[in-house]
């Protein structure tokens, strides 16, 4: 039992953080919004060069073959900096599919290009124009479509970093490149992975949202004192800090269970996502309140992060779905869960 990160994991994470710090600033995100091009092709290129995009891809496909706990840490930082490019999706959805299915791997030649993945829990296609292929997951089948062959209608997300397309139909001439049947277990695996991914993004976002608030309340004065010296403001941010703290270990266990194919991985993933949603809601609400009227303006950076939270709490498992799933599992398996079964 060693529930700490290895030095390697921390070094990789910190190096990536450094990259994000200077390359994914609020100014750069805003300029992507203004140009209506949130997906920055140059940055995607850099992410590839840094090995981020292939971090968990099998070595036989030219990847680094890293485990999902390490990549979970990377995704948490993508959340922290609100990276617009779908690197998290590439790692936790498409790479996972490639690693686990030779049929899919064969079809994907250029593994550094973005491959969108859709499912009823995340039905709208993310960055269709920037993706080479789309993998569509049904309950027990998987079909791969060339992104050129998709007819869709652009949708406007409340997060301008998300370029979404409504999947209307496949181009009738070409159809799917391939459809795989009897894929229930793989689909389930991707859904679990999507839960962990979105949880990691939410945890990263929550940390950032809290950091913005503490910085703001140190600066800003009211009635002659920094806003942050009022006990009410302290306590609302302390409460957010508590929620965030207790979302972390749950997230890392989920990533570990996913990586180790633990039979309880989906339960762990659902718990992680739910805890992360709670943390992000609390952080968003209280941070906004601590900012006063300024937080509510477009010019402050706060909303860049809060918006992403609104989206990621809903895709790949929202509150109702997660709660219902957990309650069903508990009802079925309670005697085999609990304190003596925290780790299998």
């Amino acid at each position, binding site marked *: 039992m060693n529930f700490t990160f290895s030095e390697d994991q921390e070094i990789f994470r910190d190096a990536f953080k450094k990259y994000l710090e200077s390359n994914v600033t609020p100014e750069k995100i805003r300029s992507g919004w203004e140009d209506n091009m949130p997906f920055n092709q140059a940055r995607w290129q850099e992410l590839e060069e840094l090995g981020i995009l292939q971090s968990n891809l099998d070595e036989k496909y030219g990847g680094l073959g890293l485990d999902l706990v390490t990549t979970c840490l990377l995704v948490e930082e993508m959340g922290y900096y609100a990276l617009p490019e779908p690197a998290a999706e590439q790692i936790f959805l498409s790479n996972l599919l490639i690693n686990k299915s030779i049929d899919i791997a064969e079809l994907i030649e250029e593994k550094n290009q973005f491959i969108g993945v859709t499912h009823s*829990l*995340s*039905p*709208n296609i993310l960055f269709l124009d920037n993706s080479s292929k789309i993998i569509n997951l049904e309950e027990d089948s998987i079909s791969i479509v060339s992104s050129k062959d998709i007819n869709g209608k652009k*949708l*406007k*997300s*409340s*997060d301008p970093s*998300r370029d*979404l397309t409504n999947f209307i139909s496949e181009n009738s001439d070409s159809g799917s490149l391939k459809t795989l049947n009897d894929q229930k277990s793989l689909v389930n695996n991707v859904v679990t992975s999507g839960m962990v991914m979105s949880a990691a993004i939410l945890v990263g976002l929550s940390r950032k949202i809290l950091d913005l608030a503490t910085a703001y309340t140190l600066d800003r*004065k*009211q*009635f002659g004192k920094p806003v942050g010296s*009022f006990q*009410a*403001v302290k306590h609302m941010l302390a409460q957010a800090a508590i929620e965030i703290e207790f979302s972390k270990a749950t997230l890392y266990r989920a990533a570990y269970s996913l990586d180790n194919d633990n039979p309880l991985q989906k339960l762990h993933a659902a718990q992680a996502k739910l805890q992360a949603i709670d943390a992000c*809601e609390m952080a968003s*609400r209280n941070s*906004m*309140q601590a900012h*006063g*009227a300024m*937080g*509510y*303006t*477009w*010019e402050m950076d706060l*909303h860049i992060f809060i918006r992403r939270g*609104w*989206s990621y709490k*809903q*895709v790949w498992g*929202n*509150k*109702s*779905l997660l*709660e*219902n799933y957990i*309650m069903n599992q508990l009802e079925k398996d309670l005697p085999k869960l609990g304190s003596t079964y925290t780790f299998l």
Partner: protein
Amino acid sequence: MKIGFSDSQKKFRNEIRGWLEKNVPKIPLNSFDTKEGFEEHRDWEKKLNSGNWSMVTWPEQYGGRGLNLIEWLIFEEEYYRAKAPARVNQNGVFLLGPTLMEYGSDKQKEKFLSAMATGEHIWSQGWSEPGAGSDMAAIRTTAFKKGDKYIINGQKTWSSRATFADWTFGLFRSDPESERHRGLSFILVPLDAEGVTVRPIPQLDGEPGFAEIYFDDVEVDVSNLLGGEGEGWSIAMATAGFERGLMLRSPARFQETASKLLSLYFKNKDNLSGSIESKVLQSWLRAEAYALNIYQTASKLMAGKKIGPESSLGKVFWSELDHQMHQTALDILGVSSELEEVVADDVASWIKGYMFSYSGPIYAGTNEIQKNIIAERLLGMPR
């Protein structure tokens, strides 16, 4: 105690219901925080006025209907039931209007009241200044008298509607030697005056619900002074009174939202979890509790009682409720809840309302300040 509506109240309800059914635009207007929507809403004010419905609480002598508070609540219930457009001129009708009636000269009343009622003049408010926040006495924008003019210099912020409005009203420091709430004057300023610059402040929804107003040697005629020079603070306090606050936060608004939330819930019930059920139910309970409380308060006011710091209780209550309701709706909508332009299930309006609901606990005195007031002035706890 006799709770229930009299025959004349019921008749009044039917009258306004009938008029609204005929006149409310079938297609929702554009947001009044866009240029186009602003003019659509100005037209709606004119239309309301054509039926004598634009300033129902004003006394009849000023062209209103002299509604009492209970009738006003009925009016609001019908207004929200009919999904009638938001009131672009609420700063004028509910805040400045009554103040003018009390403190304005005959000439001022003549000039401004009917132009306000018809929507010819849409008003913004100019209370806040940068750095002053919730501390309204920290005003620094000056209006020094020079002959028959006031020369205004400084900056106002968080001025609602100012992006497209015609006029603004607010407090200005007219006595250079004064401090805090002394030496302030209440002045009306046309926004097309020379030296006025309006800089919109885009909000979460991207629209400029508020603006900053810069005054650079702006000259206004002394006839635009309301009440006496240096009396601004007491006039402003009257403007901020409870009854007018109530008119901006009608319980019907929250009850309509709760009903809409319940419909959405029942439509999707089979997939929803206990936490959603619980929040939906709480929304209903609390919207009703708020309405009942307001009816009780309105009755007390009509019986001649005064309402003071009690209004802080309501501010915290409705603002938290409003946020909770909208967040719950988005949780029901799930993956659709981020789609800003989807009309089905009212997604677009839930999102807009959700963004707006973040401001409830902040504006008009943050909820933290309200809780201080409750503790210190209602519960008698030490400062």
